[in-house]
């Protein structure tokens, strides 16, 4: 059962949205400039000579020079112009690409340029096929024959008109001079190769799904809404460009050494060497993290929290400081926000009882005003009811605990133990061997099952004894032992 929203396409391929066409036309006009455009030469056929033929290599050279690009890119651009139908090949007319040799091409006449204004009509195609049929029976190719039969069926009611038009055009063509006729036939044939491509070929006119709104139509609705929105936007607080752009630049600089595209991945990028040590060393809950990973935790509190291993380390530190309830509360709030709607109410109540109520077992310290808002909101709980409290606790952890964590023995210990793997130096033979030995990894489904089993075990034993919890945390992740990093 398919619900189709697109207007039924009987072969009409009207495209109101090809913004590239205007740009392509500009390029074409430049190319045809008699002084600065592509140099043309006459093409010699058996008896006649056709002027203004251009060679593939000249087109590519001109494009490369005009846009200051290399020849591969120029060739790609040239091929796209041919695929759109602005230039057509004189030999091998069905392959719409630019060949970087002396193959000849001509500029298509603007009459046959692809346009956005009106669709390419099936009627015209039917007339064209009928005309060719009249000229010489059996000249139509297989796919053209099939199209012809299909159109004959769909347009039976106006077939007489079509045949009449075809005969008229054929007769008019005969009255032209031979060179003009040859040129026009080439142009017309090229036009239809573009707009009714043979099956199995890649067509630049292939547009995909039509979009619902017509960009040429006037926007009528919602003016008043927009105005209110614009008014509010004017009052929006903004930051100076130098400040915000400075922050963007700084971010790039900070993470530069961590970006696999800009700096070396240690020990090696798995996609380049087919060796997955890098991934094994950086598993989410590995016991000993890499030095690079630990360095990332220091960049921002957000980085620390978003890495499961970092968060575990931070949790350990907080337990030692007896302020673990802050992180637990924050995690509870996240669970509430992103969890299923069904359990939301219970979760909110549970969090209230555990962290916010008077005399709660893990009472968190938030200011009076925030507590007031939160408690009031909990009367009608929704997923963002704890937003204010969560933000307060987050900022508390960020401004206070985070700083102390980075100076703590827990962190220093983790940093000291962190691994800095040596870079792999594979020979070509070894690389080939690696490529042959690609192994699948454990499915995330299995990993998740393991995780859930672990969590159940953790929850079963009461987390009152601090020493018990700490030893459990340090044993966690021992299942996946990292492979030795050096390979020789």
């Amino acid at each position: 059962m398919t619900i189709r929203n697109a207007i039924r396409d009987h072969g009409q391929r009207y495209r109101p949205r090809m913004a590239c066409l205007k740009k392509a036309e500009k390029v074409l006009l430049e190319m045809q400039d008699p002084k600065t455009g592509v140099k043309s030469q006459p093409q010699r056929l058996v008896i006649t000579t056709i002027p203004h033929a251009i060679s593939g290599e000249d087109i590519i050279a001109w494009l490369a020079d005009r846009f200051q690009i290399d020849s591969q890119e120029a060739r790609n651009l040239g091929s796209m112009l041919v695929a759109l139908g602005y230039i057509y090949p004189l030999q091998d007319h069905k392959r719409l690409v630019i060949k970087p040799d002396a193959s000849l091409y001509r500029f298509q006449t603007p009459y046959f340029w692809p346009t956005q204004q009106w669709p390419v009509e099936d009627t015209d195609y039917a007339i064209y096929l009928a005309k060719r049929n009249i000229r010489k029976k059996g000249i139509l190719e297989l796919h053209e024959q099939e199209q012809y039969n299909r159109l004959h069926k769909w347009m039976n009611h106006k077939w007489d008109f079509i045949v009449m038009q075809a005969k008229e055009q054929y007769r008019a063509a005969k009255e032209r001079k031979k060179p003009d006729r040859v040129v026009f036939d080439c142009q017309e044939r090229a036009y239809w190769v573009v707009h009714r491509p043979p099956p199995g070929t890649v067509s630049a006119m292939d547009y995909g799904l039509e979009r619902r709104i017509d960009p040429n139509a006037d926007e009528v609705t919602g003016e008043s809404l927009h105005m209110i929105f614009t008014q509010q936007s004017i009052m929006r607080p903004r930051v100076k460009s130098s400040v915000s752009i400075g922050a963007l630049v700084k971010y790039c600089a900070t993470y530069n050494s961590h970006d696999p595209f800009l700096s070396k991945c240690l020990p090696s990028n798995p996609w380049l060497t087919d060796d997955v040590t890098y991934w094994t060393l950086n598993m989410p809950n590995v016991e000993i993290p890499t030095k690079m990973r630990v360095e990332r935790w220091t960049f921002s509190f957000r980085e620390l929290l978003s890495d499961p291993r970092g968060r575990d380390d931070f949790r350990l530190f907080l337990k030692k400081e007896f302020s673990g309830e802050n992180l637990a509360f924050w995690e509870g709030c996240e669970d509430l926000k992103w969890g299923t709607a069904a359990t939301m109410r219970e979760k909110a109540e549970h969090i209230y009882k555990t962290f916010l109520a008077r005399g709660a077992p893990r009472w968190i310290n938030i200011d009076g005003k925030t507590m007031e808002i939160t408690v009031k909101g909990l009367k009608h709980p929704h997923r963002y009811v704890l937003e204010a409290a969560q933000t307060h606790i987050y900022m508390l952890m960020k401004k206070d605990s985070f700083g102390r964590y980075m100076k703590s023995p827990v962190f220093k210990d983790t940093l000291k133990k962190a691994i800095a793997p040596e870079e792999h130096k594979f020979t070509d033979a070894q690389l080939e061997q690696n490529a042959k030995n690609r192994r699948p990894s454990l499915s995330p489904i299995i990993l998740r099952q393991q995780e859930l089993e672990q969590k159940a075990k953790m929850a079963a034993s009461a987390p009152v004894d601090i020493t018990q919890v700490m030893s459990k945390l340090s044993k966690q992740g021992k299942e996946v032992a990292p492979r030795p990093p050096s390979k020789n």
Partner: protein
Amino acid sequence: MCQHVESTEINCLLCKNVRLLICLCSPFRCRSLPAQRKIYMRSPPIPEMATQEVQLNETLAHLKTESETLKSKLEEERAKLHDVELHQVAEKVEGLGQFVMKTRRTLKGHGNKVLCMDWCKDKRRIVSSSQDGKVIVWDAFTTNKEHAVTMPCTWVMACAYAPSGCAVACGGLDNKCSVYPLSLDKNENLAAKKKSVAMHTNYLSACSFTNSDMQILTSSGDGTCALWDVESGQLLQSFHGHAADVLCLDLAPSETGNTFVSGGCDKKANVWDMRSGQCIQSFETHESDINSVRYYPSGDAFASGSDDATCRLYDLRADREVAIYSKESIIFGVSSVDFSLSGRLLFGGYNDYTINVWDVLKGTRVSILFGHENRVSTLRVSPDGTAFCTGSWDHTLRIWA
């Protein structure tokens, strides 16, 4: 986490009472609004509707001129704090070296145009969807196919991997977004356990899980975005404001972030607050449909790619467009964009079958990659930034590194 965390007392625009606000970036509405009523509302409440009634009766032309004046006033305000250009600041930054990026894997198996793909958090698995209704889960490293689903509709334009790696979501011309839990049993028919989550009134253009498997954000050709609860299929929040098809969306990367950006056929890129359903920022500088939007890794900016053959960078704190990535020789539209891990590189998949790599700070093009034989329809960088994957209308996916 937004930077403007302050406490202040301000008038709520709805009930005019004085209320405490935590974040100045949110629209000025009081927090005591019950959430339930938001679920079934089709459009947000407009407080000044009564005073606007007189204006509504006036001619369209008058409205248009007023709108234009307001827009230019907005641009004036935005320009006041614009004291430096991105490329000026970037002059002090070191230039990038030469890049050697090649296709490292080619994934063949789709029988028709590949329309969308997404990475799994395990950094090697991907899900891809195509025009013929097939959705395939691959281990891109070994190029093995692990799961396959046949959707009951064609043109599956959106697919997403769940954060847990145990489910995928997809949708397209069926106007729905469905979640398929994955199974280790090869013989199991995944379609049996499918959950229909989202229901739109037109095609589904993009979908994304939020921070968990339980919620999905979708955008549709009907001009709206919506947030859904996966378990019950309940609509949690809807986002109205685009005047035309919404083609893409991206969630803000921050851990405590509650915003996302969407781009549409109305040439606008809107930033939304997931809590209230309000549009908090809007940018309209593109000249054609916006096909793809992606946040900068810090969450303070986002890039967009459009049919007008340009990619643009918008700074959220400065509230303006700060860079345009374009070249005279690039005339075909951008179908998808993504940043490298540090945000220094912007990868763009184009409709002329190529991939262009841009230096985000300096605004120059660093590299152009060839290989696909038809339009590049989707592009995503892997979660750890070690590679990026492209899907194309030539039926294949390629991993580049």
